[in-house]
């Protein structure tokens, strides 16, 4: 390469040590890639990054870049120090929705890599924090070309800005025995119902769907999503008593008591004298701990469904919020069940779009207006599974107590009749 190579004494320190180095990777693009454009972009990027390391400041600014027909999916980046680092002056990221569950063939990864080196920097991340494939670094013009090419073979942009964002689902039924739901179907049903809201930001702020197949919640959906769908079951958990006894025989009683029996959050487990396991299923909260310890002996029940929580988010603006249960249990088997799920999501998003303030997450709106007003807005009845304790403040008006109590008894009677 004839051009001047930026010196990177600080970044070079990150080539030392046993963990794979991203700096070595960018240098490979600079020194070994066959395309001079990519060599130049990598050199320029390393120069700017070294400058950041020296001065301890970032030098990218946003802007407006999108592809034709969309208003979302690109993170525009223009360099504030472009004069010194010309070739990475425009360095936009494309957020691309991965296949649900993040499955790829090596052929598909190669195809994506080939398209990306035609138009981009050659740097990519599987995946960003929201769950997108992050194609990091291309010019305004090539953003469109790259999108056109991958869109032809089945990939579409994800969300950025105040819109429905790319979803996430765990490995789930494809490989995990704890899965209580068809995560991929839930993920795709919801996301692809809101495609318009992904591509055209018109909501108060971001809205995230995340799907976990069980309450281990590997997708952190309660903490990190506005709409969390988590697999669960409502009949008895399954116990293979012989397998459990084998486990006790191998590990010992003390281990079993210390690591399984006494760790149950609702004291629903008991070790029988013959080393079989007794489960108080009525008081099991499906926390997954004992199933995690002895997956060979303990499994979810057969009557599977999902729990739905609304309003998880991080700090900005009012502080961290966990999601809140709004549907304790919902079957998700046939077409009708999935339609009911989609309708609920539409109700939630519509109500929030109408009532949320600018830059206010759904959970923040619930905090501001109260859960009951929100539930009335989306047409969901209150349920004691939605709370961890009842009201402690007596400063409240309860004028319609009798009417509300009657509603509860009528609903209970209806449920009894239905079952």
């Amino acid at each position, binding site marked *: 390469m004839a051009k001047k190579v930026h010196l990177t004494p600080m970044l070079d320190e990150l080539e030392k040590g046993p963990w794979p180095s991203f700096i070595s990777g960018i240098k490979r693009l600079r020194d070994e890639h066959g395309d001079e454009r990519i060599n130049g972009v990598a050199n320029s990027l390393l120069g700017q990054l070294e400058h950041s390391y020296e001065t301890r400041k970032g030098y990218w600014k946003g802007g407006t870049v999108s*592809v034709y027909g969309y208003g979302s999916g690109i*993170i525009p980046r223009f360099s504030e120090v472009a004069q010194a680092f010309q070739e990475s002056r425009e360095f936009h990221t494309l957020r691309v929705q991965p296949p*649900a569950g993040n499955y790829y063939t090596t052929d598909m990864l*190669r195809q994506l890599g080939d398209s990306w080196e035609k138009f981009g920097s050659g740097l990519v991340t599987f995946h960003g924090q929201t769950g997108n494939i992050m194609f990091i670094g291309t010019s305004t013009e090539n953003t469109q070309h790259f999108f056109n090419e991958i869109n032809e073979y089945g990939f579409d942009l994800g969300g950025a800005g105040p819109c429905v964002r790319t979803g*996430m689902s765990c490995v789930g039924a*494809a490989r*995990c025995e704890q899965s209580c739901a068809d995560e991929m179907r839930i993920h795709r049903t919801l996301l692809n119902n809101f*495609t318009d809201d992904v591509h055209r930001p018109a909501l108060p702020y971001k809205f995230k769907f995340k799907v976990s197949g069980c309450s281990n919640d590997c*997708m952190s959906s309660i903490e990190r999503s506005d709409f969390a769908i988590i697999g669960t079951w409502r009949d008895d958990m399954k116990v293979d008593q012989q397998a459990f006894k084998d486990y006790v025989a191998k590990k010992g009683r003390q281990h079993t008591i210390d690591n399984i029996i006494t760790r149950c959050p609702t004291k629903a487990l008991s070790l029988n004298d013959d080393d079989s396991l007794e489960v108080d299923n009525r008081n099991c909260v499906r926390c997954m701990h004992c199933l995690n310890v002895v997956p*060979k002996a303990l499994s979810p029940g057969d009557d599977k469904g999902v729990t739905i929580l609304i309003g998880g988010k991080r700090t900005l603006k009012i502080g961290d919020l966990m999601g809140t249960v709004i549907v304790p249990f919902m079957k998700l088997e046939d077409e009708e069940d999935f339609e009911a799920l989609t309708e609920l999501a539409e109700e939630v998003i519509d109500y929030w779009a109408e009532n949320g303030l600018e830059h206010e997450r759904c959970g923040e709106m619930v905090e501001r207006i109260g859960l009951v007003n929100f539930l009335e807005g989306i047409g969901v009845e209150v349920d004691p599974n939605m709370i961890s304790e009842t009201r402690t403040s007596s400063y409240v008006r309860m004028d319609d107590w009798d009417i509300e109590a009657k509603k509860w008894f009528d609903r209970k009677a209806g449920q009894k009749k239905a079952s």
Partner: protein
Amino acid sequence: MQGQRTPIESGCPDGFQYMHPTMRKNYGNWAYHEDPRPGVLKHTSRSGEAIYTVRAGTQRILDVLTLRKLCDIGDQYAEGYVRFTIRSNIEYMVADGNKVEPLIEALEKEGFVVGGTKNSVAMISHTQGWLHCDIPGTDASGVVKSMMDELIEDFKGWNMPNRVHITTSCCQINCGGQGDIAINIQHTKPPKINHDLVANICERPSVVARCPVAAIRPALVNGKPSLEVDEKKCICCGACYPPCTPMQINDPENTKLAIWVGGNHSNARSKPTFQKLVAAGIPNNPPRWPEATAIVKKILQTYKDNARDWERLSDWIERIGWPQFFELTELPFTKFHVDNWRGARRSLNASTHIRF
């Protein structure tokens, strides 16, 4: 925009087409799993078929040449089917158990790190930092690389009482999310305002609305419409910077790292928990941030020595109490650890439950 191509709004692609045939065939029919060795999972279906997974850590910011190398390994030693975990590890799935050892060997030969399963220190989830973010207080990839260099044996082995998820974030918005240990930027001074630029760049009412403590108000400065910050009220969160970059919050000296512990996404045993502050004022010290790594290592070692099997960091602290946590880790407990945000009284001890 004549002649422009209309996008195909295909949304989220179907994962089945890229899924290993054994996984497709046994979808929803898995019976149990075993952990033959760190970094390897074996799932057995009710049909009797099994699938092996080999998990490897990478540099996350992948160059296409490295991506191709990972694909080559997948074609030569595995069966051409991969996926990525939420923490950006690559997973190779093979139906033939005999392929596992040669696959591990091939990955390790190329410098990838096999591990990250069960009670290991998982790959640190991270954000973009100086490489790509518009509001980064620090770099993420560099912090993670430096830290993983030191934690690599705990990634490769099952050394911890339970799994440990570490996260990093380059600003207080915390895109890195909740972790058993989180290393996040904490700004320590209010933003410095470039009053010449505010009127041209910022939509002032939305900047005012963005402040969590109502410390920003419109003002005329040197005859120009601008914004001013009540510096006594300001919590230095940086929330005004994204919508108004002339309110520069990043600063080479006053941008520090803070460490939080006990965030846990899982419902196993206890309900999910948020991470809590344990250390702050740590120098933002590129290229290798040794001060932050030293504290993380100290916390990990203490947790490893003292926690019981299956206790996540949050479970362990819940059992031993905060006074003991600070005693064991030798970190200072200060007035800044006492929360004063909304609902903070719930975090105070309203009992006589005290360990002596």
